[in-house]
């Protein structure tokens, strides 16, 4: 097997993995604070993509404006969900909010289904974004390069925000001990809103990258990638930012290597393979790669 091909698959894997990582961060920061697995997260991604489709193909807005507007819509949707479906259940058991998040996920998928039908729709980027560049033996489109660059930039910004700013430190304080955080005078609702806003904006960005990759959109498109990103968050150690990134990259790379290197008779099972990886890692490290011991 030519080495170039393997390197190509590796790069593809890193690209896919960095998209998972961005989505996984959204799961992880919300879980860190509320111990809530927000299953609607993947569908917020889908919602963002449909918003892009409308702004881009129907209104013909320039791409930067499309991205900003869709991110705003995703953030609003995320905050609305938090306010209506999660906040009233704040003192309820974890299973209750879990069911609530599954309900929101189903609801969002079906609303999109009602409006846009189950038909796949074309998601066509402007020509200059699909142009191919060749670096050595690797072929990357402008979109691919944008994906890598924006993931890297968002990670750096996020790490700085979480470690250097007042709201970021408050977020870490909340995810360790919500009661003590209240006693510091931290308005935990503001911190939770912030976490949902950041997560939803990142999900929308990831949706853009995925749709750019697949070139089509459909109402269920966020579900499986959302599930894999959730696996990435668990694999890396849910609640940990670095864990989400490592988990995302690991899942992306192993998925792509599996799809590219295995005989075609088994490559159809690539999704199943991802879950096998998850199970294997959790068997040896039940709290995930960077998971903290106290959360076992």
């Amino acid at each position, binding site marked *: 097997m030519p080495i170039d091909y393997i390197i190509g698959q590796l790069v593809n894997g890193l690209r896919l993995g960095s998209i998972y990582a961005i989505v996984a961060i959204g799961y992880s920061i919300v879980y860190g604070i509320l111990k809530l697995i927000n299953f609607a997260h993947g569908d917020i991604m889908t919602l963002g993509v449909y918003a892009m489709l409308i702004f881009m193909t129907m209104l013909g807005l320039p791409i930067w404006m499309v991205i900003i507007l869709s991110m705003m819509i995703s953030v609003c949707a995320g905050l609305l969900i938090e306010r209506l479906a999660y906040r009233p259940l704040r003192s309820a058991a974890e299973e209750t909010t879990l069911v609530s998040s599954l309900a929101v996920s189903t609801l969002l998928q079906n609303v999109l289904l009602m409006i846009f039908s189950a038909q796949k729709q074309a998601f066509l980027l402007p020509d200059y974004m699909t142009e191919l560049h060749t670096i050595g033996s690797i072929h990357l489109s402008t979109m691919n390069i944008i994906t890598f660059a924006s993931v890297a930039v968002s990670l750096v910004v996020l790490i700085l925000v979480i470690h250097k700013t007042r709201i970021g430190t408050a977020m870490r304080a909340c995810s360790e001990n919500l009661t003590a955080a*209240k006693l*510091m*005078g931290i308005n935990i609702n503001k911190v939770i809103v912030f976490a949902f806003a950041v997560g939803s904006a990142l999900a929308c960005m990831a949706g853009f990258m995925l749709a750019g990759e697949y070139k089509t959109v459909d109402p269920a498109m966020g579900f499986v990638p959302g599930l894999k990103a959730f696996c990435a968050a668990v694999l890396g150690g849910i609640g940990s930012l670095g864990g989400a990134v490592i988990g995302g990259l690991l899942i992306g790379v192993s998925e792509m290597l599996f799809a590219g290197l295995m005989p075609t008779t088994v490559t159809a099972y690539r999704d199943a393979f991802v879950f096998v990886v998850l199970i294997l890692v959790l068997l040896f490290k039940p709290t995930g790669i960077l998971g903290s011991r106290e959360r076992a």
Partner: protein
Amino acid sequence: MLQISNLQVKYGGITAVNGLSLQVNENETIALIGSNGAGKTTTLHAISGLLKPSQGECLYQGMNLLKMAAHDIVARGIVHVPEGRQVFTRLTIEENLRMGAYLQKDRQLVKQNYERIYEMFPILKERLRQSAGTLSGGEQQMLAIGRALMSNPKLLLLDEPSMGLSPLLTQQVFEALYELKKAGLTILLVEQNAYEALELSDRAYVMETGSITIEGNSVDLIRDPKVKEAYLGGEI
């Protein structure tokens, strides 16, 4: 300053605090003593807004605390050092202190507060960049008190500051409390270590199964035969 009347707090079907009334005046140090499960911690949680009482009144400088969220209560100057210290173990000591100053706008004052805390607990200054999880129990208690002082308290609520500490460290923590008392801070102290608490305080309340059974000046209570027998381990 703080006036609680007829407070009732329920956990599901269990009434943890039932018809409690107490008063804290400005510059006073008040001890609230009693055995395990008497409802002392619950009372503090109700004052700082972590729990919503089912009945009663809790007035602080004329404001009704029961209608306020926990963070608003901190903003009014009631600061709670919780049982078991509850420092943020994954944050550094400096970040813990900074979280204490979360609502403080006056940078000059924050700076003064840091200096004051370093003077009181020099060990914290030596370990600013270390994560709080690496501190011993006594050091964590100092950090918890320091963190609370960063919030500029007018009324400090302390829940079992000596719990789990060696006699030597207990002594150190109480020395800090004497210092705070001398500086004029109003303190409501919940303690198992009744003798130390009565020594420190001006007045004290004894709590049993959810309400106050004995109250009075600490110097009198320390000689009260009933208090002596139940909380001070007989003849001392």
